[in-house]
């Protein structure tokens, strides 16, 4: 099966530190890929390179056969790659519904129309449909600031889901979420994304979350992919146990 995303020799340095070092991976459609690694291993830099937040020093990124290397975020997003953030990036002066409405207008290519309302009945219906599976429908009219951290994470992903991406990159989807909430949040996210046949790459520190939800794991150490495979195999490798988990 042709890869959704391929990176070839992807490299990014900050001064003398090589954050991502010659990374070559291929992500197949429908995969749920967990990226693990210690702090500074290059996980978030890898996500930032794919989503256009950073430009690589070397290497190539191909999405559905198209070269998207160093394309700006809005162009990468329009091509069908969405992302969510470790700290939810949402518009806090707006309501939950308005946040999703903006995403829907953007998906339609009408995000900058100066005429006609944002909140059309059709768009409102769609927004409520997007919010429903994330359990946010009843909070639609509430200001974003009233949501708990778990709700903010869900909204962050809901906005990305509203774009109907083919590939979603999530940076630490359970960080800041209480241990009671984290499995619920992940189950909700992955159920919705699997239903929509979205390929998912998520960066995660919590190994319980990784082993439970990832079908494939990439272990990053000092900017390189040290291991790549099913979670139980990768996390059992002595080098990964030492470098990522800090176990002897």
């Amino acid at each position, binding site marked *: 099966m042709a890869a959704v995303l391929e990176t070839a020799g992807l490299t990014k340095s900050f001064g003398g530190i090589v954050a991502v070092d010659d990374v070559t991976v291929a992500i197949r459609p429908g995969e749920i890929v967990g990226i693990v690694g210690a702090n500074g291993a290059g996980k978030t830099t890898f996500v930032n390179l794919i*989503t256009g937040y950073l430009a690589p020093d070397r290497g190539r990124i191909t999405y559905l056969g198209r070269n998207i290397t160093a394309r*700006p*975020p*809005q*162009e990468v*997003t*329009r091509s069908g790659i*969405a*992302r969510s*953030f470790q700290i939810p*990036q*949402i*518009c*806090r*002066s*707006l309501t939950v519904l*308005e946040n999703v*409405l*903006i*995403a829907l*207008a*953007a*998906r339609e290519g*009408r*995000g*900058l*129309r*100066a*005429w*006609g*309302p*944002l*909140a059309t009945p059709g768009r409102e219906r769609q927004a409520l449909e997007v919010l429903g599976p994330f359990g946010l429908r009843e909070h639609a009219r509430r200001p974003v600031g009233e949501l708990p951290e778990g709700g903010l994470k869900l909204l962050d992903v809901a*906005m*990305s889901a509203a*774009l109907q991406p083919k590939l979603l990159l999530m940076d630490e989807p359970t960080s800041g979420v209480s241990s009671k909430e984290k499995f619920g949040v992940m189950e909700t996210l992955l159920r919705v994304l699997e239903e929509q046949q979205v390929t998912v790459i998520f960066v995660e520190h919590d190994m319980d979350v990784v082993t439970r939800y990832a079908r494939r794991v990439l272990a990053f150490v000092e900017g390189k992919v040290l291991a790549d495979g099913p979670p139980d195999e990768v996390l059992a490798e002595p080098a990964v146990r030492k470098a990522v988990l800090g176990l002897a």
Partner: protein
Amino acid sequence: MTRALGATLGLLALALGLGFVLPEWVVFVLTLALAKGLAVLSVVLLMYAGLVSFGQGLFFAGSAYAAGFAIKLWGVEEALVAVGLGVATGTAIAALAGLLLARYREIFFAMLSLALSMIFYGILIKAYWVTGGSDGLSIPAPRVLGFALAGAELRATLYALTASCAAAAVYLAHRYMHSPLGYAAQAVRDNEVRVEYLGVSVARAVYLIYLVAGGLAGLGGVLVALNVGHIEPHLAYWTTSGEFVFIALLGGTGNVFAPFGGAIVYEFVRTYAFKYSPYTWQMTLGVIMLGIILFMPGGLWTIYRAVERKVHQWRPSSRPLA
């Protein structure tokens, strides 16, 4: 008819009615306030996107001079043509300046906008053989809808034109605020990163918002030129742009009507302060602004909101004006 359109038409009818009963000098002050209110509205729309412009005088003066040249030098007689030309000039200047300014935010945006308006001020002062230098230019009275008017008739007609333009701008600005671009402006203010990751270009959004603001400030400038009958470089000076920001804070940024409320209060306070305290009138305005910031940070619009809340409590079926 939507509530906003109804409110706009109601206020327009009130403004036109007041034109028949108020003394002529009051109507003139109101005219200037409404024209300036358009430039203040442009400042408020930029504030919605998190941008503070200290250079709206650029469009205000640019459009006033474009209309002045059109009437005085090119033989344009019709006021409506001059108004259209003013809006087009404001938008065109914004289209050029926006290429630079859309890349900047915060203090850099504020200072660059100020710098551009001061460059224009310098050009107006130095190119005296065209612009009349610091003396400016007098503009002959225009025709309105083909009618050659003079004296009180002309002033009343130009007041009606100004009030109508202000009403149209308020309604269009209200529609804009509820449009995808209006919400995108708020999203840009809240979180540019998210806007980019929705597939929307922040630079393009800021550029478009700047165009809208340029057109509005231009409309205000041309109306001042037509009503006063004289244009001078001071229209581009930084104090003029600063005055628009001052009025925006005075009126509040909570609604598209607020800039006009602020402008009306400002013009009357200034008129009376100048009359009773000609050497310290700026101090009077400063004290008022201090009071507003300390006790009413949302501006005078807060008073309307408080009254509205009281009415809402008294009459639960009423709905606040969006």
